[in-house]
């Protein structure tokens, strides 16, 4: 029976029949065929079954061979299976229906056609749990194995790999015959090989091992490792010495590759942490480095950037993909304007008195924190991660890089590049450097230093805002966001050498990498402590940072 059902061709035939019968849908529904009745009855059992029971019921449904099995189970997997409280009748929800909506659009489980809509509180969801969802995925995989979408097939094979029962193996076997997509075929090959490891025939096992040795997957590694292990009673799990040998070699080579790739991964972790540090520091490198303003409100400017991201996202609902891109310039503007405001109202009275700027900006930071707390409450704000930023880039089975980190590294480089261009290539940049090197001379040359100061501070603040956009993708968006990063950003700037963008770049990156390299051995805290102590000692040997500021202006006395 199940064989018959599962033969894809036949199954499709059924679906076609169903589609044909759509025209006469309602009629058809009024006279439920005995099979439909049985189907409904089985479904009904789900209402008040315990989770273990639900597993069995799902299996029954799968075997029932009813044409709607896939549709119904998919709905179940996606939390769209409900029953009406008054008459206990089972319904499906339209795909993409919001669970919290006040009214539900219903679908009849037999006709698979709209059954009108009703107020949601009359309905109860039939809930799943992790195990049940897994069972459902495996069950559905059997259907999806013959999907037209290669991606779906791939997922199906992976799901079935979790449980390589003979039935599944059988199915995969058949599929591999007709499978056209090479990727999927390869995947099926691995799955079958894994299955073949249990086969009584040593030759089959040997060939399985040789197919598997080129995979880098952890589960493959574990499976092969089992073959090599002695079981407590001294006998080997794998009887045949030849297979054992082959397996041992495979384990070694796979292991070697995996360690190699994990090294690369750690390095990347370091760079991504580093680029965050760079991002939070370069804004400061300008306000603090170029202008000598100890800007304690720098963190709060980042916070403003993060909140701007949130606001933009709320302002354009349903477009998380694009809103983040809109947020970048928006955050820059908001933070920059805030910065200019601070500069005009407070800091400009304090030039040449950097420590006063520390105190004043500390006050400003308190005010800004409270401001957002009053507007947005102290609660975290949820900034959705756009799909193109979530998930991982699977370079191979041993090495995967998360997209958001990747994008942040790239983003940092872009921002850094843009900043360099501004400072080196534009009139503004020229004037900024002029003023920072010799204010009076610059004034004499007719540069409106007041105006340059404001813009410089605005620029630095804007960068901080942009950093905030990135942070909103990594951590909490709440009033304390700034506080948790300000110290680090000062460390980076000083380490790199005040007022030197490249210093901030190299400094941040190296701090990040060192931190990540140490962490596996020393643990997070000690790694950080080590970095701090190293920084202290480093400053002893180079009292002006990695790239000391040059020229008379920088001279202390």
């Amino acid at each position: 029976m199940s064989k018959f059902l599962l033969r894809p061709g036949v199954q499709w035939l059924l679906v076609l029949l169903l589609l044909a019968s759509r025209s006469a849908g309602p009629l058809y529904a009024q006279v439920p065929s005995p099979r439909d009745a049985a189907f409904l009855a089985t479904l009904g059992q789900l209402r008040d079954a315990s989770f273990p029971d639900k597993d069995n019921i799902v299996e029954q449904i799968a075997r029932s061979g009813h044409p709607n099995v896939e549709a119904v189970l998919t709905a179940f997997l996606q939390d769209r299976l409900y029953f009406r409280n008054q008459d206990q009748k089972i319904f499906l929800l339209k795909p993409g229906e919001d669970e919290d909506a006040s009214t539900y659009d219903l679908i009849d489980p037999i006709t698979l056609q709209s059954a009108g809509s009703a107020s949601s509180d009359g309905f109860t969801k039939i809930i799943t749990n992790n195990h049940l969802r897994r069972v459902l995925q495996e069950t559905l995989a059997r259907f999806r194995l013959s999907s037209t979408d290669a991606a779906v097939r791939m997922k199906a094979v992976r799901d079935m790999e979790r449980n390589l029962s003979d039935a599944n193996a059988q199915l995969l076997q058949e599929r591999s015959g007709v499978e056209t997509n090479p990727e999927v075929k390869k995947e099926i090959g691995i799955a079958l090989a894994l299955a073949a490891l249990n086969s009584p025939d040593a030759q089959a096992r040997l060939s399985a091992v040789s197919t598997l040795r080129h995979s880098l997957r952890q589960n493959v590694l574990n499976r092969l490792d089992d073959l090599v292990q002695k079981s407590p009673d001294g006998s080997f799990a794998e009887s045949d010495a030849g297979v054992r040998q082959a397996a041992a070699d495979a384990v070694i080579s796979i292991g070697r590759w995996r360690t190699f790739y994990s090294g690369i991964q750690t390095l990347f972790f370091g760079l991504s942490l580093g680029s965050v540090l760079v991002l939070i520091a370069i804004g400061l490198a300008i306000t603090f480095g170029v202008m000598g303003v100890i800007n304690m409100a720098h963190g709060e400017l980042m916070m403003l950037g993060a909140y701007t991201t949130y606001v933009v996202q709320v302002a354009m609902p349903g477009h998380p993909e694009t809103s983040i891109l809109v947020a970048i310039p928006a955050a820059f503007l908001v933070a920059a304007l805030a910065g200019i405001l601070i500069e005009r109202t407070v800091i400009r009275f304090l030039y040449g008195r950097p420590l006063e700027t520390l105190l004043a900006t500390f006050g400003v930071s308190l005010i800004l924190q409270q401001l957002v707390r009053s507007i947005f409450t102290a609660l975290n704000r949820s900034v959705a991660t756009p799909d193109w930023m979530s998930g991982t880039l699977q370079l191979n089975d041993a090495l995967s890089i998360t997209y958001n980190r990747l994008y942040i590294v790239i983003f940092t480089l872009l921002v850094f590049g843009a900043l360099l261009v501004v400072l080196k290539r534009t009139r503004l940049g020229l004037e900024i450097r002029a003023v920072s090197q010799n204010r009076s001379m610059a004034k004499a040359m007719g540069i409106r230093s007041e105006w340059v100061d404001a813009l410089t501070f605005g620029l630095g603040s804007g960068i901080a805002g942009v950093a905030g956009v990135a942070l909103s993708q990594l951590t909490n968006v709440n009033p304390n966001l700034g506080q948790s990063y300000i110290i680090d950003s000062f460390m980076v700037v000083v380490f790199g050498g005040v007022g030197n963008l490249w210093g901030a770049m190299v400094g941040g990156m190296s701090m990040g990498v060192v931190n990540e390299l140490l962490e596996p051995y020393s643990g997070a805290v000690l790694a950080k402590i080590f970095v701090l102590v190293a920084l202290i000692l480093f400053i002893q040997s180079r009292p002006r940072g990695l790239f000391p500021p040059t020229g008379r202006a920088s001279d202390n006395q």
Partner: protein
Amino acid sequence: MKFRWTRMAGWVLAGGMAVSCLAFARPAKAQGTIKVGILHSLSGTMAISETTLKDTDLMLIDEQNKKGGLLGKKLVPVVVDPASNWPLFAEKAQELLEKDKVAVVFGCWTSVSRKSVLPVFEKDDGLLFYPVQYEGEESSRNVIYTGAAPNQQAIPAVDYLMNEVGVKRWVLEGTDYVYPRTTNKILEAYLRSKGVKPEDISVNYTPFGYSDWQARVAAIKKFGSAGKKTAVISTINGDANVPFYKELGNQKISAEDIPVMAFSVGEEELSGLDARPLVGHLAAWNYFESINTPENKAFIAKWHQYIKNNKRTVNDPMEASYIGFNLWVKAVQKAGTTDVDKVIAALPGIETPNLTGGMAKVLPDHHITKPVYVGEIRADGQFDVVWKTKGLVPGEAWSRYLPSDKYIVADWVKLKCGNYNTLTKKCSGQNYK
């Protein structure tokens, strides 16, 4: 000239400060009122969690006053901001008790804040209702613990994973402070007693506000790929959770493969992030917003109306605050006075309905009875309850799984002691004569 001007401004500023001090004078102590202290951080790192409880308390007080107050008197809330600063907690507690002479205090979140105010409450004989799940190992005469003790959260959660999910390998991931340390200590002892091998337990601690989870999550992934069913028990504190879950989502650790069971992640934390990648991960609480009871529906409605925002979530500590407040009200009514000693005497045995259809009863050890639920995260940041304990679990101050406190009991009715050693028959670690 300018100098004169700034000096002028200076005097103006000084004057302004003086005036402001007068302007913000405290409300005079009116007759026929009962002062209720609210000691939750409104600024600093803990404001994220505690502000909500302040609002909850205010709502409850407001509601009680609408019902005609208590003993015919109006309740007057006294709100202070200890600013997530532990010494300040002690100072503010002292202010509430000695300066404002409040009848009761609802407050604290972190263990350290509670530890910091404890001596004050015991010295000034105050009454504190503490609404957050905590590590136990404590029972004070002057504190009622309406949050979960370890045996009301951690142990049942592990039972669920072990028996229902069949977990064989355990990662105990926590923030490095006393609550995770104790909980994990108890859990380790418990797991070992259930025959879990040491190499199948991995314990790790990260600092507060830890945000760079890449390496840790990768390590968990590795640990979980050893073939045995693995689960993570997370006692990660508040703001480190968002980056942790974001990283889980990014590294595609699905709940079907390695479920994460969290003890400090509730509806409110989830409202702070995009829950879609987290569907299926677990949390153990004594309350979930999604639980469908009339009391709960009514409470949620009231909350939304009070806070004027239908999106605001409800979470376990809020229920604990609700229970605590009602317990106090009942006790005061029973004692016929707000006198702390009489109220404390009246409290054990008092019962009030919780929001999930059960009864919360104050036990002699000043903990209460609670149901335990395990929920799975939904895409909308709510939880589906997938398991619950049969009946109510009585809170235990001292864990029976730790050799150090096997023989210690707390009983404020008969023994009048929070730390009584049944072997030596001695009462130790108490702060007042």
